């Protein structure tokens, strides 16, 4: 871990102290908890998964309500959380069949799985994505990830890494946060490690002490005396740049260009020719996420594990994009165009494929985190949480007896959270089988007492996540949301 002791021993310790990260720390380092946000891009619907309604339960509403043939809605022993296992001959106009299984995830992870109903406040993708991360500006506009990074990330090289896009990658608006708590964006998980060293991987360039000398002459002699520097010395942009430059050397020392490199040496990525190597965990993550080259989300998940395992980050965000991903030889739609939002064209297929995709991916990521010890027999997973953030749900109606149809955005929905720190094997709230609308719960009762006729605001999920992760929210006026955390 990139901790304070290492910093103080390093040649650049003085520089980092003045850069403000260590200097600004006023309390002892806290044992971190880890937040992984998986953006369910496009709008994932709880009534197409964990709160699915059987046709026999919907009564007179059944023909026009988004409900399923009874046999597709699975009840799992030991839990009220449901799952939908389904298949189809096409994905809208795309002539590819699919089989989508959710039940395995519920069966395996039910004790850590928590379903929480809520009603959002925007049907705009970008705005709603950001609100899913800020609780609709619940705490001065800071995102969940920024809050976790600010709490635990001071001793981490890149506390908050974000591989998503659109609203999921936007910074929050709380200017009181240190700059290092803001997310570090990653456009391409496969190539991003090349951004973590200023010289390695380049041919025939000077390195080592000579490069360090050139940097020192630039930083200590050329720049301070230049008219440009002296004229604009109050510039916040320059101040930030200097601090980031100082951190650069620490990133290079950590050899992240190797540790986070998922790829193996190949004609497309001739690592050896450029003095580079794959991560010691490269083969392991490639085995768990074999589609890392063709499916950006699998590469993101692999990198997310490496960032946490190598104690580089305390929070990582990944998400499928709106781009279509096809496995042509297998005639499989891996990621429909617009991801969950393909529900506008083919609701059942889009929801089924995407839910199975995200749950399967999360299960594999959890498996890796479970297998990696944090300390004293405790695994990384024991200290982690996965939050399936999403924009909104989908409309609850369908054309009479249609098994495939178009759906719109709908504010009424909920979220799924999986974590040993959450109030697992619990549904907070419920769903009305006659309307498909979710309703609320008592947020302070760990039993998850449902309250039909009520709707829950985004800030409750936001507060519940932060408190389950042990983030100090003093002064924020956030509700306790005790129902969302594991109470022992």
């Amino acid at each position, binding site marked *: 871990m990139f901790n304070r002791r290492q910093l103080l021993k390093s040649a650049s310790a003085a520089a980092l102290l003045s850069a403000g990260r260590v200097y600004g720390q006023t309390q002892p380092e806290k044992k971190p908890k880890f937040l992984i946000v998986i953006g369910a891009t496009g709008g994932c619907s709880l009534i197409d998964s964990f709160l699915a309604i059987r046709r026999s339960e919907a009564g007179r509403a059944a023909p026009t309500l988004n409900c399923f043939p009874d046999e597709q809605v699975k009840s799992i022993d030991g839990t009220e959380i449901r799952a939908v296992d389904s298949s189809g001959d096409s994905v809208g106009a795309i002539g590819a069949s699919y089989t989508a299984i959710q039940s395995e995830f519920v069966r395996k992870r039910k004790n850590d799985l928590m379903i929480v109903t809520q009603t959002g406040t925007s049907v705009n993708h*970008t705005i709603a994505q950001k609100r899913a991360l800020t609780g609709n500006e619940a705490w001065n506009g800071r995102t969940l990830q920024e809050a976790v990074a600010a709490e635990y990330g001071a001793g981490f090289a*890149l506390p908050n890494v974000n591989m998503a*896009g*659109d609203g999921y*990658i936007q*910074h929050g608006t709380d200017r009181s946060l240190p*700059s*290092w708590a*803001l997310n*570090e*964006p990653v*456009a*391409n998980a496969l*190539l991003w490690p*090349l*951004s*973590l*060293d*200023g*010289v390695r*991987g*380049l041919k*025939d*360039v*000077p390195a080592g002490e*000579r*490069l360090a*000398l*050139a*940097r020192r*002459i*630039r930083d200590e*002699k*050329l*720049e301070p*005396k*230049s*008219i*440009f*520097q*002296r*004229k*604009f*010395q*109050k*510039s*916040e*942009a*320059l101040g*930030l*740049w200097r601090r*980031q430059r100082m951190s*650069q050397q620490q*990133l*290079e020392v950590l050899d992240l260009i190797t540790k986070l490199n998922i790829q193996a040496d190949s004609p497309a990525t001739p*690592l050896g*020719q*450029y003095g580079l190597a794959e991560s010691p965990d490269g083969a392991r993550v490639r085995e768990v996420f074999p589609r890392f080259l063709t499916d950006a989300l699998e590469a993101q998940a692999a990198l997310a594990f490496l960032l946490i395992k190598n104690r580089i980050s305390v929070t990582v965000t990944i998400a499928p*994009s709106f*781009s279509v991903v096809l496995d042509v030889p297998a005639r499989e739609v891996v990621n429909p165009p617009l991801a969950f939002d393909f529900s506008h064209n083919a609701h059942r297929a889009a929801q089924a494929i995407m839910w199975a995709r995200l749950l399967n991916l999360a299960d594999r990521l959890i498996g890796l985190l479970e297998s990696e010890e944090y300390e004293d027999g405790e695994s990384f997973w024991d200290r982690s949480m996965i939050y399936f953030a999403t924009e909104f749900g989908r409309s609850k109606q369908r054309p009479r007896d249609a098994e495939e149809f178009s759906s719109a955005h709908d504010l009424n929905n909920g979220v799924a959270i999986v974590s040993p720190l959450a109030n697992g094997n619990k549904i907070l709230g419920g769903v009305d089988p006659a309307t498909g609308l979710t309703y609320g719960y008592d947020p302070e009762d760990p039993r998850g007492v449902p309250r039909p006729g009520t709707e829950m605001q985004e800030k409750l999920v936001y507060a519940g996540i932060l408190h389950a992760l042990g983030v100090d929210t003093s002064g924020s006026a956030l509700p306790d949301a005790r129902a969302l955390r594991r109470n022992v």
Partner: protein
Amino acid sequence: MFRELCLLAIASATIVSCSNTPNATSGSPDAGVTPPIEATKASLRFKRNERIREDFSQALALAPDELCNELGAYSCTDTVHTIALGGVEPYVLGVREPLEETTSTAPIAVDRVALSGCTKRVARDLADPQSAVIFRASLGDAGARREAIVRLYERALQRSPSESELAHLEELYDAAAGDWAVLSCYAVLTSVEALFY
């Protein structure tokens, strides 16, 4: 009377500001040079990927697509480090607006682009002195080094270096010798004056 006083005030302000305009040997508090007036707003912007690519390419007389390619194939400024360098990627990532602030990895990405480009420029100049753009003569000669730095500053920063800047980069030669040209080029291209406006 009031109008004449206003005109006099404006003229005085103009004279003061002109005296702080960078002259032919600007860049340092060298003897006789008036210190610059500190900007109160100091509103600077990072050049971002496209401008860095174009400015560096022009300064180094390299085609934009040969400036820097990771693993010999992937454009540094347009593929690998696009977002880190403040660019956008609206079609896949949905990043439609550049990040407001520079990222932790932005200085690293800049280093890679500069080192790659400088290495290429120096190699070409030394291989073909007749066509050399920046490093035209034997760099073992102090005079040749001085002239090279002047050309580098003029191409990269559109000004001449000050005497102190020349001296500092000459200082680098003693320790860097054979790498001096690349490292001098790197130090200038990665200076904040080359990256912000």
